[in-house]
């Protein structure tokens, strides 16, 4: 009761994602194939959580189910206790392919969610300008997306997803198509926005550095059918600096996660390749090139 009274001024914590007993399979001519099985994850309000795993492990499937694009075969997906039933503006999504509307200017893209909500034009224009300013894009508001660089496109994508004030932000390998330098800058921008907006984030990536650098917690998934192999808290202090990526704490976390994922990747590639891969790993070249030895 006292707690509740104390919270009168602030907003009640929002954006609690809960995925329980989740399984998702799809039908093929040979029978049903299980993409994700027996998965539990949760994201606390305001938490930044990443999912990493070998390719094809179903991490994007899981994210798409939280977004409401896919229905679980069994289990539940809830946000703040309400079952997810189709996509909605409460769960903003950022896609790897940017997915900006090419026929809308940068500002019109950002305005889209507000327009769908029926906000009057003048008001949503002002809101979009403020948001674009946050991402350093106010000078490009009248540009069409085609003329922007990849990093700028994805900034618009993030700002567009945030414009409607969603409870959670879902990102599906958002920086996967960017070059390394731009990616680092984008990570910084995302962190800034997240800290400012105190929004829950669920972030799918295959980049281990990225997952550790950004997250409070990282889920590591197994090879198909995907399930949670490990849950790793990231105790690095915030605000995080680029230099932390060289710290022994960071490298220790990275080593742990890498070995977890390598195990799963090899499993996913099948037995024969596993043997070959292991042999390859054991070869001591003694300074010779591989061709010379073979």
């Amino acid at each position, binding site marked *: 009761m006292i707690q509740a009274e104390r919270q009168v001024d602030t907003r009640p914590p929002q954006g609690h994602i809960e995925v329980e007993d989740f399984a998702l399979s799809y039908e093929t001519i040979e029978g049903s194939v299980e993409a994700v099985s027996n998965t539990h994850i949760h994201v606390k309000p305001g938490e930044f959580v990443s999912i990493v795993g070998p390719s094809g492990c179903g991490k994007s499937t899981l994210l798409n189910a939280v977004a409401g694009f896919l229905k679980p075969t069994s289990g539940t997906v809830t946000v703040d206790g309400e079952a997810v039933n189709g996509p909605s503006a409460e769960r903003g999504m950022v896609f790897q392919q940017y997915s900006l509307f090419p026929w809308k200017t940068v500002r019109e893209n950002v305005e889209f969610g507000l327009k769908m909500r029926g906000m009057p034009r003048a008001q949503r224009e002002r*809101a979009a300008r403020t948001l674009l*300013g946050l991402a350093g894009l106010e000078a490009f508001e009248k540009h069409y997306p085609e003329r922007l*660089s990849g990093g700028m496109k994805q900034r618009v994508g993030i700002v567009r997803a945030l414009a409607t004030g969603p409870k959670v932000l879902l990102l599906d390998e958002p920086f996967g198509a960017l070059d390394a330098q731009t990616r680092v800058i984008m990570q910084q*921008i995302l962190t800034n926005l997240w800290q400012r907006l105190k929004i829950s984030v669920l972030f799918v990536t295959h980049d281990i550095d990225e997952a550790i650098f950004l997250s409070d917690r990282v889920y590591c998934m197994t090879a198909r059918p995907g399930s949670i192999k490990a849950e790793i808290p990231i105790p690095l202090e915030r605000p995080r600096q680029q230099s932390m990526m060289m710290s022994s704490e960071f490298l220790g976390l990275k080593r742990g996660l890498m070995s977890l994922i390598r195990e799963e990747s090899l499993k996913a590639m099948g037995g024969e390749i596993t043997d070959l891969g292991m042999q390859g790993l054991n070869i001591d070249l003694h300074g010779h090139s591989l061709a010379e030895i073979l």
Partner: protein
Amino acid sequence: MLRQEEPAVSPADAVVKEEPAAPVAQPRRSFASLAARWYRLNKDCLRAVAIGALSLFAFLVLWHLLTTYRVVFFVRFTNVPAPLEVYASFTKAIHDPKFLMHIVLSCRRILIGFSLAAVVGVPLGLVMGRFKLIHEIIFPVAEVLRPIPAIAWVPMAIMLWPTNEQSIVFITFLGSFFPILVNTLHGMSLVDPVLVRAAQCLGARESSIFREVYFPASLPHIFTGLTVGMGVAWVSLIAAEMISGQYGIGYFTWEAYSLVQYADIALGMIAIGVLGLGSSLLIRGIGQLVMPWRMK
């Protein structure tokens, strides 16, 4: 809206300077250097115009020579009018209200037939692309009717419609309808599903997605359909006018043949060519106005 009142991070923190850079301030230039610069930037375009003009001129010269010397070499140029004769009949025709009426009537038929085709074809294509049941019902019928050339509809059109005018407009409509429908459908099938999902995540409902995503995404293909449809509309119109018309530029051309007015045959043909070209350019221009994001 956003909880952006909290001044946790100053906006400047999030600002990162990135390409594309604003154009560097240019020093003032003299007229001559500006002209030289303009020439450098537009060299390819000027070249194309110059070669194009030369090529047209060469065509006229060849035509003149072939007709002046009445060349017979497999093809007979004995009765073909010379360019100057055609020009003479052109100067006479532009003062002739009857010739102008032929042109106005043809343009009116195109306008009505083509507009009807666009007004029916585009929405039908959009709806067929979006709703599977409608596609399944209409597509087989469309596929059976589509290969029938509009000219083959002439006898049927005469039976169907009470007046000649209506049947000619109907033929024009049919000619442009199928290219418009098929291209709109094609555009709908190529809409990126990720854009649809992005719109759904931003709270868009079915009708908004249709208006804000499917329609603009299909516009480039719709305009391809309109351009092709306009071409076929002229083909169909001229054929229909030649067979069943009493007026129109197609009828004018055919009548010229019957009356042994050979210069008028070429004049009619050239008029058809110019009108077809003009209407295609018109469609392209409208397309650029409607799709500013496609401007280079």
